[in-house]
């Protein structure tokens, strides 16, 4: 199974290119296209109304839009339940519902995005291609960086936790039991809830990082022939490079006869940064401008030759 992420500045045509690639690939393979962009327009491109569930567009093409708010709510509800379980006595005072404020914690959206990718990759194993249409650059880089950042933190926290347990074990050996009527103190790694949770998180993120940096994952960067798009794409390429994420294709979208010089200039600059990455050029469809093209995903250029 191959995983493709379509990224780029807002408005460059990421969703359209992702949809076009999905349509072209679905002629020979089973494809699932997933929109992670909070401003969903996958349904608009294919002209269907999409729910959070997977819907079938053709025999080999399935579409899905992820509801980030719903995912964030679900995740926090789980945590709130654990907290409320620990502090059950607050129910007698009817104060337990105050934990619900956690739902406004910053950073939860990126986490929800990452979780949805992880779930999709793990559950949808009968597809040959999973295509993710990502949100604009800033959020995309943040959530792609999340596994590495998190692993670094988890590693350090595990080290400290192990040190704590080591000290507790020493105390236990010299003085006997650590626990009293009020508190139970564990000294073995298998009994410590915090360490167990940290190990579990660490395994999840390592697995996800392996998928993202692996052979079967590709990042496709879509850009337009203009200076703003070039600058942001260069920043995005730098970010991907820092995270060791595999950029495999550049798509220069919306090229016309009028902006062809600018298209060459932008491509030249992109090439300097990513020498071995192929560039596909997609011209701005005249029928699209007329508003007559009903199938936005059906473009004449083949953008899949470098993705197979």
């Amino acid at each position, binding site marked *: 199974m191959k995983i493709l992420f379509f990224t780029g500045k807002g408005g460059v045509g990421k969703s359209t290119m992702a949809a076009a690639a999905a349509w072209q690939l679905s002629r020979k393979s089973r494809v699932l296209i997933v929109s992670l962009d909070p401003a969903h327009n996958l349904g608009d491109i294919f002209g269907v109304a999409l729910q959070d569930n997977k819907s079938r567009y053709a025999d080999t093409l399935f579409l899905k839009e992820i509801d980030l708010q719903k995912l964030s709510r679900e*995740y*926090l509800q789980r*945590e709130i339940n*654990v*907290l409320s*379980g*620990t502090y059950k006595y607050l129910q007698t005072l009817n104060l337990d519902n105050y934990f619900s404020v*956690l739902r406004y*914690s*910053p*950073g*939860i959206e*990126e*986490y929800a995005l990452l979780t949805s990718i992880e779930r999709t990759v793990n559950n949808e194993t009968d597809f040959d291609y999973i295509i993710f249409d990502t949100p604009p650059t800033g959020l995309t880089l943040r959530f792609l960086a*999340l596994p590495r*950042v*998190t692993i670094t*933190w*988890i590693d*350090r*926290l595990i080290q*400290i*936790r192990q*040190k*704590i347990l080591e*000290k*507790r074990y*020493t*105390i236990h050996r*010299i*003085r006997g039991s650590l626990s009293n009527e009020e*508190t139970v*103190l564990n000294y073995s790694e298998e009994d410590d*809830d*915090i360490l167990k*949770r*940290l190990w579990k*998180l660490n395994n999840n993120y390592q697995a996800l990082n392996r998928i993202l940096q692996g052979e079967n994952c590709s990042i496709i960067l879509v850009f337009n022939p203009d200076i703003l798009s070039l600058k942001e794409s260069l920043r995005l390429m730098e970010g991907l490079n820092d995270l060791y994420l595999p950029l495999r294709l550049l798509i220069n979208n919306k090229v016309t006869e009028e902006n062809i010089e600018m298209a060459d200039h932008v491509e030249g600059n992109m090439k300097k940064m990513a020498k071995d990455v192929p560039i596909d050029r997609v011209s701005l469809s005249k029928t699209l401008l007329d508003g007559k093209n009903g199938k936005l995903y059906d473009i004449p250029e083949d953008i899949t030759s470098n993705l197979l």
Partner: protein
Amino acid sequence: MNFSVFSFFRRFLSRFHESHREDAVALTIVEAEELENIFALLLLGSFVGLPSPPTFLAVELLPFMERELKILNRRAADAGDMLAEMCGTIGVD
């Protein structure tokens, strides 16, 4: 009468041994608590303006952090007189 010189010495030695063990372990207890304090501070550092890990990591571990939070709180209260506490622990009068 149950009292004998032998049992007196046995009790004396056992208390003597116990007090030495307490002395030996006192510093380790402080160290362990300090580490727990650091752990809580790193994880929940955003409360005092430290760079914090991704929020969800703190949220994930929060339900198990009651003891660490108590220590964090106590350490914050004792922070003004930490030198005296350290001196007390290592036996400097």
